[in-house]
């Protein structure tokens, strides 16, 4: 018994290290792609009048890129707080689905594990954890949280760079950093269109956001998202007939 214990402990340690390393490797490309976005978030926060500490706190505590960017464009507007909260909710509501999907793997875990899983849950972490689950046929909290932590650190470093750069480089928001966001989202959305209804929801959302923005209607993002969701939902019955 005494001989076996250290050996098995070592094996577990090695296995754990391998899982953490794998998580790091898998999340890295997605985390790299988020760097320009983090820089934009940091510099934009400074531009709309937040202090450096406030800008960093947002990335440290909220940790939701799209919700942060959307809220930054709303700061200073009339009735900002309620619009910020409602847009945050609409944008974050997709995480409800992620947390429902992970529920069966997480509900028996300790409070701390569940809190960590929730805090570090992002689109990217969800994507790599699902791929890991499919490949290994078992869910790993260590893998999911490791991937989430790596992503969190890179996101916050990128925000910090943006805060510093935003103070020294004028018009940093005109460099076209937002193109990196567009390219990342295109690379996520386009391959995910596998059903007719998803295609319809993407088209509806894209067309309506353009029309709403050009006509200058407020909350274009939220309204377009809801139109996209409704269109997908209503055309879902067509999926089967189209194969």
């Amino acid at each position, binding site marked *: 018994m005494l001989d076996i214990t250290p050996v098995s402990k070592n094996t577990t340690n090695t296995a754990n290290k391998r899982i953490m390393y794998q998580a790091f490797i898998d999340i890295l*490309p997605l985390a790299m792609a988020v760097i*320009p976005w983090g820089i934009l978030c940091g510099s934009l926060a400074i531009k709309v009048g*937040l202090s450096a500490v406030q800008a960093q*706190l*947002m990335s440290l*505590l909220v*940790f939701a890129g*799209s*919700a942060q*960017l959307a*809220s930054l464009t709303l*700061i*200073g507007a009339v009735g*900002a*707080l309620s619009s*910020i909260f409602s847009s*945050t909710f*609409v944008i*974050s*509501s*997709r*995480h*409800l*689905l*992620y*947390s429902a999907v992970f*529920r069966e793997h997480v*509900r028996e875990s300790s409070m701390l594990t*569940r809190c960590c899983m929730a*805090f570090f849950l992002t689109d990217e972490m969800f994507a790599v954890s699902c791929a890991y689950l499919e490949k290994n046929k078992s869910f790993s909290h260590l893998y999911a949280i490791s991937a989430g932590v790596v992503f969190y650190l890179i996101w916050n470093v990128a925000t910090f760079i943006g805060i510093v750069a935003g103070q020294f480089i004028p018009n940093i928001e005109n460099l*076209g950093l937002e*193109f*990196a*966001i*567009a*390219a*990342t*989202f*295109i*690379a*996520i*959305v*386009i*391959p995910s269109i596998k059903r007719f209804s*998803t295609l319809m*929801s*993407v088209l509806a*959302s*894209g067309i309506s*956001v353009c029309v709403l*923005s*050009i006509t200058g209607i407020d909350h274009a*993002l939220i309204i*377009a*998202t*809801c139109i*996209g*969701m409704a*269109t*997908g939902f209503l055309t879902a019955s067509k999926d089967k007939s189209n194969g």
Partner: protein
Amino acid sequence: MDNFGLMLLGMSCITFACRFLFFCKKRPFELGEKTKLALSYTAPSVLTAMWVPIVFLSYQHIEQSFFESPFLIAGLLSIILSLKLKSTLLIVVISIMVFITLQLLY
């Protein structure tokens, strides 16, 4: 911003609540099949509502014609690449490099 503390607290709570809700020991409520179906379109819809204006409407801010905008050309390229390539990183890297080149050219 005057209410920054309140805004930060509110946003943190909303994002955390959305992520934690179904990790509660007791399920707060059941997501019906229809709700799950509707939510499955949230991610593509919200992401599209964010990238489409960048690709198609940015020309307004940079004083360039619609068809000559680097955002449009590089954006369309990344759509084509997304249909052909499997690697997300490769798609993003190639598109950004083309975008930077176009910006330097104009």
